[in-house]
């Protein structure tokens, strides 16, 4: 039997990712008629390499990881679908310090990004910092990479760093789950929107299969209770088709920030 090997960038804890994927995997298995296997990774780069080198067939990429994969494979990666929200995704800057109220106040402070390869946790925050004339490499006292969005929150809340930046959807999830004391940690800047996450496959995947996968995602209906559970776990209302051109802006931002050479 054919196997579809699926993975996701580890922007959240891998156990969390696995939990989120379980019903989706079962759904895809039923729809596509192949076995679906989730292979967890803790390193962003490993998921990129895995897809390029035929060790994975479909990956949940961030905007930046998609661009990296596409560049590294010389355009051999195809984005199929993305969530509604991913068209206008945002990052938040948070702090626990009273004296930080705008980006300029970050000068001379310690700051934590998420993972180096994260769009919403590193690339876009960096690019908006640069836009505010703050060079993270020279103007901040020290920068660190927490590795994941929820880790950034924990680091800021734990006082390890003065401020941090993360993905808005994780932030909202944590708020909803009451895991954050908003008196202690607060948002002081929210970025404008940009394209982010998508589900990508390699271009050499039979177009029939690509079509079937896209179809499966697009037919997820929030009205049906079963589909609703899947969509809720993915933190969205519905999936929409996407294309490579959507990510040109990200690519440009990455070049601009010196993260892509």
């Amino acid at each position, binding site marked *: 039997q054919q196997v579809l090997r699926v993975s996701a960038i580890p922007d959240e804890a891998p156990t969390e990712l696995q939990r989120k994927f379980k019903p989706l995997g079962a759904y895809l298995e039923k729809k596509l008629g192949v076995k679906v296997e989730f292979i967890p990774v803790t390193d962003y780069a490993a998921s990129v390499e895995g897809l390029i080198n035929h060790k994975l067939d479909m990956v949940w990429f961030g905007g930046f990881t998609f661009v990296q994969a596409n*560049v590294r494979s010389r355009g051999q990666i195809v984005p199929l679908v993305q969530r509604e929200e991913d068209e206008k995704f945002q990052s938040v800057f948070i702090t626990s310090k009273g004296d930080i109220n705008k980006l300029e106040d970050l000068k001379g402070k310690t700051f934590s990004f998420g993972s180096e390869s994260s769009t919403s946790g590193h690339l876009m925050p960096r690019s908006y910092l640069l836009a505010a004339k703050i060079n993270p490499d020279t103007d901040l006292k020290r920068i*660190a990479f927490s590795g994941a969005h929820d880790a950034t929150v924990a680091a800021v809340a734990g006082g*390890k760093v003065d401020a941090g930046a993360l993905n808005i959807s994780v932030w909202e999830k944590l708020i909803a789950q009451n895991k954050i004391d908003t008196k202690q940690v607060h948002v002081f800047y929210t970025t404008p929107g940009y394209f982010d996450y998508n589900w990508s496959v390699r271009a050499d995947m039979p177009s029939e299969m690509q079509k079937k996968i896209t179809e499966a995602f697009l037919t997820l209906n929030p009205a049906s209770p079963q589909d609703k559970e899947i969509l809720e776990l993915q933190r969205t209302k519905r999936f929409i088709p996407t294309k490579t051109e959507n990510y040109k802006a990200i690519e440009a931002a990455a070049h601009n920030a010196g993260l892509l050479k």
Partner: protein
Amino acid sequence: MKHTNSNFNEYADMPQPPAMIELKTALALLALIVLTVASFLSVNIDWNNLFSNEAMRSSKEFLLGFAPPDLSSNLLNKVSLATLETLAMSALGTAIAAAFGLALAVPASGRFGIIAKHGTRLFLNFFRAVPELVWASVMLIAAGLGPFAGTIALAAHTSGVLGRLFAETLENLPKECESTLRINGSSATTAFLYASLFQALPQLLSYTLYRWENNIRAAAILGVVGAGGLGQMLKYHLSLFQMPTAATVIIAMLILVAMVDALSLWMRRHLTD
């Protein structure tokens, strides 16, 4: 066998051989073999894939991606600063650990009685069992981001490691030299200094130096959680697929380890001779 048997009769007073291996040791050995076999079965290494043409091609491609290393002066400056930071972190961490380790190894080798021995061992085991990364996370909270937290984390874990390695070295030493001094009335500490420490010194030194090399790599991992140095650079550039830059960082690491290696050889030859 015939000859042997008849000869055995002739030499009836030849002692009977004792059991070559004790039952307990044999059982431990058996358990070890079972564990090894079970592990290999459970991991099930994919040898075919490892030596396939496809594997050769893709690893070649990956390695070629590193060439040529990025030698821009801007990067070299950054790398040399990070190298110094890693070197300082690992050297200081190791030096502190060696001092603590030695101080703890003496009681842990049973020189101050059985209670002191097991007490210190428990303490050492705890320090050793907690990985550097966890120490670093605690220290990052206590001391804030930066190499200081990394240094303390390295020192804490390495003290546990060296303490135990030192203790076992001291236990495994031939006892005569030290016991002669003790019989003649030297105090435990001076006898230790004049005999056992002397005999153990090359071994202690090489464990320390060797642990230092290890700590260079450990310092690299700590960089990932925010303790700075080469590790943070390596992770950063590898994540961004800036292979030529990563190559420069790796080369810096290689040079660092090779230097420590040469230094270790030199020190063992000259300090202990």
